[in-house]
């Protein structure tokens, strides 16, 4: 028998297998077409811009494009002795062009990032270059200022030749490339970013711990109480959850101020003296208290939804088999709630690590996080490439946490309320 006769045919004579595959493909395309509008929209407005951030963070074309001839001439320079006349002549040509376009100021700012001391010597060069004679530019430029005769400064210029640089990432970790081209840390007292990264991790970690410790008992209570009571208590969790973040931050600003209610209460019970009210806001304490309360619902809701599914008879069985309530809780109940704990902790930690508004309002100088620094560079210094670099460092941290969580617990266990 030939294989063709074995095949099952549909009524129109096409083999069933082919026909099914065709239908399957049609369904696939149909499903994909439904998702396509949103997917395209997000790719254009969201995914590409994040890629754009990556590009901006390493982009260093500015100097490359300002001194094209210089860098071309420098290709054969070994960087040991001062460059030869050809490099000087090319540099002069590039520089005159920049002065014509009034862009030499930008060059001096950029080169000053690489090495201090460029600002003044570029200003001087601009003034003197007007009276330069043709030929022998090396002598003429070197006579403008003794730094122009210093090989270190020419090496600094050469370091700006590549179109891409990782220096913004190094800056985000308080490191830089020194004159010898080695990666070193900045001086101890100028390591502001490392302090911020560590503080961000510390605050996010402790806020997560506090949220867990506070959420576990109330989620348990909500899950075990009869419906009519638990629904009422659930409002205490859901109302803050739905209330504006700024409203909740405002209420903490009122509570924690020096003449505020919390301080009044402490004075009232004699814990602190009236003239010695502690500063509870504009420092880390403010960030801790406000962030814990604001993020607490994100811990309670996943815990609650997991605990709700645990049958009370399991605890009774544990007790009837001779365990004390504590043993039954620890050996039976607690392990069953781990998916909820994982989801809650992940959610709170990731929200906390990127927090911006609340620390900016109640954190003061010692309670701000890395997000505040990113916003500062976006809005005040306008160093967008640095803001992008730090944003991507934060993002990669968040993605690592997700990846770890996915390995340990599984991302499917996340529930929204």
């Amino acid at each position, binding site marked *: 028998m030939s294989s063709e006769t074995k095949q099952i045919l549909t009524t129109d004579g096409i083999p069933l297998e082919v026909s099914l595959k065709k239908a399957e493909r049609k369904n696939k395309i149909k499903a994909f077409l439904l998702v396509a509008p949103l997917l395209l929209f997000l790719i254009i407005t969201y995914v590409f811009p994040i890629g754009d951030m990556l590009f901006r963070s390493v982009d260093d074309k500015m100097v490359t494009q300002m001194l094209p001839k210089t860098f071309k001439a420098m290709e054969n320079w070994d960087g040991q002795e001062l460059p030869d006349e050809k490099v000087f002549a090319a540099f002069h040509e590039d520089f005159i062009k920049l002065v014509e376009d009034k862009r030499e100021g930008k060059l001096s700012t950029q080169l000053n990032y690489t090495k201090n001391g460029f600002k003044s010597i570029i200003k001087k060069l601009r003034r003197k270059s007007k009276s330069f004679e043709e030929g022998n530019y090396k002598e003429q430029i070197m006579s403008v200022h003794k730094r122009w005769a210093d090989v270190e400064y020419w090496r600094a210029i050469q370091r700006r030749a590549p179109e891409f640089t990782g220096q913004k990432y190094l800056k985000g970790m308080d490191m830089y490339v020194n004159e010898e081209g080695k990666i070193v840390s900045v001086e101890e007292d100028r390591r502001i970013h490392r302090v911020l990264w560590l503080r961000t991790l510390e605050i996010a970690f402790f806020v997560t711990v506090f949220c867990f410790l506070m959420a576990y008992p109330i989620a348990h209570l909500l899950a075990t109480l009869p419906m009519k009571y638990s629904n009422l208590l659930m409002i205490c969790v859901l109302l803050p959850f739905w209330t504006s973040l700024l409203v909740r931050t405002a209420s903490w600003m009122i509570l924690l101020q020096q003449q505020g209610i919390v301080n009044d209460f402490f004075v009232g019970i004699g814990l602190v003296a009236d003239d010695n009210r502690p500063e509870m806001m504009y420092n880390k304490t403010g960030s801790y208290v406000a962030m814990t309360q604001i993020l607490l619902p994100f811990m309670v809701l996943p815990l609650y939804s997991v605990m709700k599914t645990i049958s009370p008879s399991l605890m009774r069985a544990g007790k009837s088999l001779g365990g004390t309530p504590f043993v039954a809780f620890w050996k039976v109940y607690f392990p069953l709630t781990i998916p909820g704990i994982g989801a809650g902790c992940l959610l709170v930690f990731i929200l906390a690590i990127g927090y911006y508004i609340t620390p900016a309002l109640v954190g003061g100088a010692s309670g701000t996080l890395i997000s505040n620094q990113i916003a500062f560079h976006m809005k005040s210094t306008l160093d967008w490439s640095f803001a992008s670099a730090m944003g991507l460092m934060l993002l990669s941290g968040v993605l690592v946490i997700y990846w770890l969580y996915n390995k340990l617990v599984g991302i499917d266990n996340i529930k929204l*309320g």
Partner: protein
Amino acid sequence: MALPKYTEPHYRIWHYIYLTICGAVFFFLIAPLFVIFPLSFNAEEFLSFSDGMKRLDPDAFSLRWYKDMVYGTKNPWGLAAKNSFIIAIFATIGSVILGTIAALGLSSRHMPYKGLIMAVLISPMIVPLIISGVAIFFFMAKAGLAATHTGIVLAHIILGTPFVVITVTATLSGFDHSVTRAAASLGSDPVNTFMKITLPLILPGVISGGLFAFVTSFDEVVVVLFLAGLENTTIPIQMWTGLREQLSPTILAVATCLIILSTLILVTAELLRRRSERLRGINR
């Protein structure tokens, strides 16, 4: 939670400690919201309870700050409220349409690369807001949409769709697909089937996703801070500026209104959730 009569004393004590802890946590969660109410009726300009208020003297209370909120000459709350509502409504409509259609595709068992696509679709919810803000700002600046309502609406659609996708996918997970096949076998075209059969059944999920999207937009400040010009100011932006400069009682009046709004949204969301569970036959 009555304890059985045979409970040993030390477990009884432990149980009361547990209840006290729970009470304290609930107090910590909800009490800060209630501070705002009385203080917004303060007759004076301070943000703490005056002696008159502690005595419940009627003269210590007034509607002064509410009047200031509505009629105050220099107060931008009117414009901010108008902008906030316009932006939130359009952002919600956009998120609901895009999100629901995408959720329908994602729930199909024929969907290829489901995990990867889902990850992209909900990524705006996972990525810290400050990073989304920077990225969206770069896009809007390039597209010439910075400091426009359109730009902010688009940004809020990005942030709002993940909630719609998640809630509608969850609703569809309990959806009995034989009803749509039944409709098709009776000669209904797909659009008609969706409007007459699917949509009414998943409506609670769609609306609660829409509520999430609305609240996200209405309360969003990080991205708007990057995008908004003077003309596009919103309520959160005004609150943010007000809280940074000085806490005025007018902000508390606004905050009280916002709490009332969120209570309404909470009630709606809860009713919808219960209705949805009833419709899907989940009895919890």
